[in-house]
């Protein structure tokens, strides 16, 4: 399968094939608003995510992308609006309960457990109720953690303390930690941030692979690096100053005047 996933190929076709048309809404977000003092970080945003969808959320700095993620993973609760996961309202739930329901996230700034070896970092997530439940029969926690690390390409650093591991590898470790609970919705907060082009390529491939391996898992990616994201996802939502200003396929977004305006800081004058 790896050979099929050559970078640069039109992978969006693969996504539709896997999805197979049947769509069930996993995450429904209705009119959520969150303000910090006078600043409306997220302003009346609604969208829904289908099962198995690979969605990107973009927007300039301070658009409220990370706040939106904090709301979805219940690290913050919104001032108004509803968030439903598989029909269940998750607002006000403890963050660890949401993870055990099936929404896992990564952090924009990596948060490894620095005193622990890399494999133990993953085992923390496997120790959670959902993580422990998802370990297959006749498989130890260590084996499963090693498999997860292999999926993201960290097998060689398995026993290295996380404090000795470089930033790019820690980004991948974050994803392995999030995947350990086998979430139904995976929220990736700037997975490509601070990575060099080679690492971006590798990570794109592994995200695609994990998408194909588990076709029912929805993945939401917040990203700044548009060139990587646009090739990866099927649908893009654009946030600006807390408001959702556009959504559509990457081509539509790229040609959307409003989006270009937001990114370039004004209408483009053709000479």
């Amino acid at each position: 399968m790896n050979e099929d996933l050559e970078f640069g190929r039109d992978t969006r076709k693969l996504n539709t094939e896997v999805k197979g048309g049947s769509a069930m809404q996993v995450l429904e977000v209705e009119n959520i608003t969150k303000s910090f003092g006078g600043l409306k970080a997220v302003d009346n945003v609604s969208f829904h995510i289908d099962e198995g969808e690979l969605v990107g959320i973009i927007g300039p700095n301070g658009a409220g992308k990370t706040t939106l993620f904090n709301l979805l993973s219940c690290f913050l609760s919104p001032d108004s609006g509803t968030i439903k996961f598989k029909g269940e309202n998750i607002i006000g739930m403890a963050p660890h309960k949401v993870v055990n329901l099936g929404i896992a996230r990564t952090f924009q700034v990596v948060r490894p457990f620095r005193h622990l070896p890399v494999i133990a970092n993953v085992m923390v997530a496997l120790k959670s109720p959902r993580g422990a439940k998802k370990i297959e029969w006749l498989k130890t926690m260590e084996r499963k953690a090693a498999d997860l690390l292999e999926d993201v390409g960290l097998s060689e650093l398995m026993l290295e303390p996380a404090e000795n591991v470089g930033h790019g590898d820690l980004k991948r470790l974050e994803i392995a930690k999030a995947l350990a609970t086998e979430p139904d919705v995976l929220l990736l907060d700037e997975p490509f941030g601070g990575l060099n082009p080679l690492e971006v390529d590798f990570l794109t491939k592994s995200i695609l692979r994990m998408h194909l391996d588990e076709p029912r898992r929805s993945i939401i990616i917040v990203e700044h690096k548009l060139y990587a994201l646009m090739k990866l996802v099927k649908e893009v939502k654009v946030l600006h100053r807390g408001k959702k200003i556009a959504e559509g396929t990457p081509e539509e977004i790229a040609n959307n005047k409003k989006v270009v305006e937001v990114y370039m800081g004004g209408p483009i004058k053709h000479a």
Partner: protein
Amino acid sequence: MVRSYFRRAYSSFTAHVFDIPPRFMAFLFFLLLLTVPAMQLGSYVLRLLIMANIFAIFAVSWDLLVGRTGQISLGHALFFGIGGYTSGLLFQFFALPIWVTIPAAVAIGALAGFLIGFPCLRVKGPYLALITMAFPLILSNLVKWSPLEPIFGGELGFRSLPPFFPFLPFTQAIMAEYYLILLLLFVSSIVIYKIANSKTGIVFVSILDDEVASKACGINVTRYKIFAFTISSFFASLAGCLQAHILKLANPPMFSLDISFLPVILTFLGGIGTIYGPIVGSYIYVILDRYIMSILLPKAFESVGWTLPREFDFAKLLIFTLIVLVLIIKWPRGLARFATDELQNLEEARDLDERGPRIWKRYKKTKH
């Protein structure tokens, strides 16, 4: 049959103890401690070592809570005192034998840790340290309070608690107590070491490193913190009631700040977060404090013709504070960890099959 069993035991010993230098050192240390009563050092030294073992249990329990889980407690005297006072109360009012009072005291201490866990979960870091520091001070004043004197015995506390071995003559009783407490130290430190290195222990360290990230991994942080508090208070109250029965005394100083800071000193001497460090630290502390500074130093002064001022007792804490301060700056990882790291380096140098002076080996090691 028997031979194969011994062979298996021997091979597992080689694999788990003999081939790991720090563990082998610990094993030798334990063997040395086993032979101490045969050295005829006198009952005072045995008493000292008994106290060192009790302090070691106390400090190891603190290390699990603070060094591994990151919940800074400056009020471990609470559990120490609760252990001693429960033993005293049960003996005083129900005349229960020692084999009942100790488990009861330990159970009540663990319950106290469980309950203390709840209010302490809302705060973090230095605030948690301050809150935990307040609890033993409150209890210390409560047991000293005159209206409650018929129950808690006021300033004097409980006296003439039953000893462990009332049927043995004095010297043999001390020897038996020594072995009993050494066994308890061995068992409790192994239990704590096993917990700290289990998968639950991994979660403890994850809470120490990053609480938010462990929440994002689906860990119920609250539950694990309360668990850590409970285990820690279990062993701390064990240490408390052991001390009460050894000294045959449970009095308000068991709740004092000195006792609260004792595990801090011991753990920083040995190495925080190591579990074996506090044991080393408590031996260093007891030998320095109770032997060198209390016996050898006055004797040395006498031989010259001087006398130590009485205020020297108060200066001891100052001296230990200075030692800990120097240690934190010089070897922040503690003496025991420093020693094991050196051993590990030696081992690696030997693995590289180098001969010659050590600095050369180091140089070679960096080259590889």
